[in-house]
C-alpha cells in the first residue's frame, strides 16, 4: 500500500461509468485523486519500480496500438516518463495498488448491488462478471450459480429452488448410490420386522430363509443388484485414484485429514451419480478436474448454508457445465459434428481468421496440429493449464459469455496461441509442442482474457447449438 496518509476524495460519477477493462482507461479518470499525491516528488521515482506489475515481453511485441494511458509497458519506459515530467501518466503508474484496491471495492459493491436486486439483470451480470469477480465472500459462488442458470433470476425464488434441488439430490443419492447390503437390509426390515425380534433373543439353531437365485452376492445374473454393484467397482476405483491425484498441493483436496477425505467423498458421490445417470458417457478421467473447481468455489462460500450444501449445488452446476461439451468425452462421437475433432478444427479456423501467419506456421511449417495441445485445453476447460487461482478468473469470463462457454473457450485458446506468437514463430515442432503442452505460467491473465474478448465471437455456431 501507499506509504503515508492518503485521503481520497469521493469518486465522481465519471469514474463509475468507466468500468475498468484495462487499468489504463481507468487511470485517466483518477486524475483528480492523483493530484493530491504528487507532493512527494522525487521519492516517487524510487517507489515506482517496486509497485509495477511484471509485464511479459510478449505483450509488448504483439504490435497492437497503445495509447498513452496504457500501463502495460515495460518498466524502463515508465521510468523515463517519470523523469520527463509528472503528467497524469507517470503518476498514474505509481499507486497501482491503490487503484487496484479502489477498483476492487467498486467492483465488490457493484456486484453486491446487482445480486441484491429482486430481479437480477443477467445481461448486466454477465458483463461485469466477464471482467472478474472479486474473491472472498459468496460473490463468486452466487454469480456462477446465476450464470449457469441454477439459480433463477428472480431473487425471491432462490430459497425455494435451492431447497427443491438439494432435496432432489438427496433422493438421487439414496436411490442410486446405496450399496446392495444396505438395500437388502432395508427391504428385510420392511417385510418381516416382527420376526426379527423373536429370534434375536433365543439361542439355538439360526433360522434359514430361502432366497431366490438372484438375491445373493455371487449371483451371475445380469439384472441382479449385486452384479450391477460389482460392475461399477472398477469405475469407483478409477474415480478414487483420480481424486487422490487432483490438486495434490492443495490441502482442501489432498492428504489424509478428515476434511479432505470428506471433500473427496463428496466429489466421488457426485461423479458416481453423474456416471450412473449418463451410462453413455460414464466417468472419464478429467471430469474430476472440472468438478474440483466448482466444488472448491461452492465450498468456500462464506454463507454457511451454501457451503454445507456445496455437494448438491456442485452436482447440478457440474451437469450444466458439461451439458454442452459432454460430446467431447465420448470417444465414438469424436468425428461427429459436436465431437472434439470438430471443435478443434473450429479452433484452427478461428486462428486462421485472426492470424493467418501464425496459423500457417503451426499447421504447415511445424505441423503442430490442434489435437496435440488443444484436446486437454478444451475438454478440461483449461483447468490443467493454469494455477488454481487463475482458473477462477478465467472461468469468470468463460461462464459469463453471452454466446456460451464453448465459444469463449475457443476464443481463449486462440488468445493463448496469439500471446505466445513470438515464441511459436521461432520454434520448431518439438519446441512448439513443448511450449503449448506446458503453457508458460508467467502469462498475464487479464491480458490474455482481454485478447480473447477482442476476438469477435463466432455467432454462426451459436445459432446451431440452440
Amino acid at each position, binding site marked *: 500500500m501507499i506509504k503515508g496518509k492518503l485521503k481520497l476524495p469521493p469518486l465522481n460519477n465519471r469514474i463509475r461509468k468507466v468500468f475498468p477493462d484495462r487499468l489504463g482507461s481507468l487511470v485517466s479518470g483518477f486524475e483528480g485523486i492523483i493530484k493530491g499525491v504528487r507532493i512527494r516528488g522525487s521519492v516517487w521515482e524510487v517507489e515506482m519500480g517496486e509497485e509495477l506489475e511484471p509485464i511479459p515481453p510478449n505483450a509488448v511485441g504483439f504490435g497492437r496500438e497503445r495509447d498513452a494511458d496504457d500501463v502495460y509497458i515495460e518498466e524502463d519506459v515508465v521510468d523515463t516518463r517519470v523523469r520527463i515530467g509528472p503528467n497524469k501518466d507517470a503518476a498514474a503508474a505509481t499507486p497501482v495498488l491503490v487503484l487496484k484496491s479502489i477498483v476492487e471495492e467498486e467492483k465488490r459493491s457493484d456486484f453486491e448491488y446487482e445480486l441484491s436486486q429482486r430481479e437480477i439483470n443477467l445481461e448486466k451480470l454477465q458483463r461485469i462478471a466477464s471482467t472478474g469477480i472479486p474473491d472472498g465472500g459468496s460473490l463468486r459462488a452466487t454469480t456462477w450459480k446465476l450464470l449457469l442458470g441454477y439459480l433463477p433470476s428472480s431473487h425471491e425464488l432462490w430459497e425455494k429452488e435451492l431447497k427443491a434441488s438439494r432435496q432432489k439430490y438427496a433422493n438421487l443419492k439414496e436411490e442410486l448410490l446405496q450399496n446392495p447390503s444396505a438395500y437388502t437390509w432395508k427391504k428385510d426390515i420392511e417385510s418381516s420386522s416382527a420376526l426379527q425380534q423373536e429370534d434375536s433373543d433365543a439361542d439355538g439353531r*439360526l433360522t434359514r430363509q430361502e432366497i431366490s437365485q438372484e438375491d445373493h*452376492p455371487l449371483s451371475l445374473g445380469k439384472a441382479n443388484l449385486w452384479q450391477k454393484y460389482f460392475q461399477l467397482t472398477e469405475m469407483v476405483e478409477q474415480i478414487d485414484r483420480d481424486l487422490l491425484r487432483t490438486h495434490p498441493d492443495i490441502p482442501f483436496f489432498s492428504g489424509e485429514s478428515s476434511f479432505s477425505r470428506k471433500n473427496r467423498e463428496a466429489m466421488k458421490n457426485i461423479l458416481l451419480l453423474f456416471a450412473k445417470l449418463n451410462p453413455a458417457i460414464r466417468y472419464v478421467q478429467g471430469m474430476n478436474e472440472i468438478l474440483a473447481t466448482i466444488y472448491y468455489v461452492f465450498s468456500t462460500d462464506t454463507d454457511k448454508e451454501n457451503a454445507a450444501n456445496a455437494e448438491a449445488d456442485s452436482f447440478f452446476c457440474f451437469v450444466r457445465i458439461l451439458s454442452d461439451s459432454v460430446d467431447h468425452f465420448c470417444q465414438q462421437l469424436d468425428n461427429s459434428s459436436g465431437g472434439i475433432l470438430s471443435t478443434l478444427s473450429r479452433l484452427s479456423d478461428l486462428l486462421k481468421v485472426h492470424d493467418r501467419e501464425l496459423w500457417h506456421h503451426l499447421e504447415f511449417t511445424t505441423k503442430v496440429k490442434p489435437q496435440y495441445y488443444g484436446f486437454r485445453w478444451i475438454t478440461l476447460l483449461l483447468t490443467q493449464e493454469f494455477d488454481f487461482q487463475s482458473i477462477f478468473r478465467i472461468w469468470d469470463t468463460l461462464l459469463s459469455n453471452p454466446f456460451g462457454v464453448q465459444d469463449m473457450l475457443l476464443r481463449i485458446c486462440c488468445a493463448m496461441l496469439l500471446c505466445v506468437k513470438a515464441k511459436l514463430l521461432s520454434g520448431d515442432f518439438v519446441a512448439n509442442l513443448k511450449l503449448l503442452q506446458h503453457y508458460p505460467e508467467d502469462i498475464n491473465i487479464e491480458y490474455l482474457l482481454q485478447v480473447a474478448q477482442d476476438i469477435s465471437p463466432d455467432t454462426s455456431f451459436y445459432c446451431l447449438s440452440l
Partner: protein
Amino acid sequence: MVLVLALGDLHIPHRAHDLPAKFKSMLVPGKIQHIICTGNLCIKEVHDYLKTLCPDLHITRGEYDEETKYPETKTLTIGQFKLGLCHGHQVIPWGDLDSLAMLQRQLDVDILITGHTHQFTAYKHEGGVVINPGSATGAYSSITYEVNPSFVLMDIDGLRVVVYVYELIDGEVKVDKIDFKKTSSTHPAH
C-alpha cells in the same frame, strides 16, 4: 459392506478332485474381500487357487493338511466383528455346541467358524454365533458319506452380518440367508 468367504474341508486330492463346477463358476475374483478357510485343503495348489480369488486368505490347520505351518487357531477383526477360526478336530466331542462355546470364549470372538464335521450348521449361542461351512467339495467325513457340498459367504456391514449359505443339493445350487445382528453390549468378561 465386506464380503467374507468361509469354506473348508475340501480334501483335495485325497477324497475329492475339485470344487463342484457350479461353485467354481460363481467364485470369481474381485468380489470377495477376505477368505477364511477352516483347513484340510490339503495341498498347495488349492491354497494358490484360493489366493487368486482373494489375496487376503486365512487358514487354520486341519489334520490332513500337507502344509504344517498353518496355525491351530486364528482370530481376526472385520468391521465390528471379531471372527475366530479353528479346524475343529481339536474340539472334542466333534461338533458339540458347548465345547465349541468354550473355544469361542477362549478366543473371545463374536463369530466362531469351525469345520471337520462336513455338515453345515449355524447356531446362536450365548451372544455369539458358531458357523460350520461344511465341506466345499462334498468329501466324505469320518462320520458319514452323505455330504452335500456347501460353503458360506458373509456380508458384514456395520453391526450386522448376513450369512448366505450355498449348498449343492441334487446338482442344483440352493442359496439361503441368515441374518444376525450384534447387540452393542458385550457379554461379561471371564
